[in-house]
């Protein structure tokens, strides 16, 4: 899995490309820990190129949502494929995390 990092003003954008499973999660977790211990309060994760997610990956998003909320920041996910979206719905995360159809809408929420 590839992790691409971008910054737009105060907003950190993390783009994931590939599979997020038990094997690839540790790499992303290291990156996310750096973000959680930084002063970043506005985080967007772009999942357009994420092809697969398991419960190991869902934990990352749940932790991120909690940590950013704890900093009084804003967190959103965008551009989920149908497969990834269905895993979020089955696990009940769809209702508690801000999820938008595209980057533009997500950036509006994070403003």
């Amino acid at each position, binding site marked *: 899995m590839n992790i691409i990092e971008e910054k737009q003003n105060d907003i950190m954008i993390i783009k994931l490309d590939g*599979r997020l*499973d*038990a*094997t*690839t999660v*540790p790499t992303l977790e290291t990156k996310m820990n750096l973000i959680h211990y930084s002063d970043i309060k506005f985080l967007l994760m772009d999942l357009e190129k994420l092809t*697969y997610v*398991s*419960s*190991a990956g*869902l*934990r990352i998003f*749940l*932790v991120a*949502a*909690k940590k950013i*909320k704890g900093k009084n920041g804003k967190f959103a996910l965008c551009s989920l494929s149908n*497969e990834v979206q269905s*895993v979020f719905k*089955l*696990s*009940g995360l769809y209702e*508690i*995390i801000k999820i938008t159809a595209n980057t533009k809408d997500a950036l509006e929420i994070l403003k």
Partner: protein
Amino acid sequence: MNSATNTAINSHKFVINNIELNNISETVTLISSKAKTIYPPFIRGGDMELIIEEILVNICNYAYPMIDSHRQVEISLDFDEKTKSFFLKIVDFGLDFNPLLKEEPNLELDLEDRPIGGLGIHLVKKLASKVEYSRKNYQNILSLEIHST
């Protein structure tokens, strides 16, 4: 490459040695590719991958919590032409562990109160049409049925 080795005993049986969190994806892909070969119109490959991964993660964490020489898992994959269903049997030789006894997560809780984890087996139960556990001859045996459409 990692230490996992896969030996096809027959066309639908796989023996995985030294299963670990860092080599699970190899096994997951191996089995789902086989399913696709057996029945090319199979469109729920992603669901099957998720089911296998979640079960193998549980085996690594609870059936084989200690690093030892064994850590073997046997997976058999069968396809029923009539019902167009796949049948998976996942067997480990570790500690007595029934993942189906895990408490169901409460999906109604708010973000603040939602516990981290506990979703894996919930997903397995949601995606498979049938899941059964048995313990025989020091083996944990999980049998699952997955519809192809």
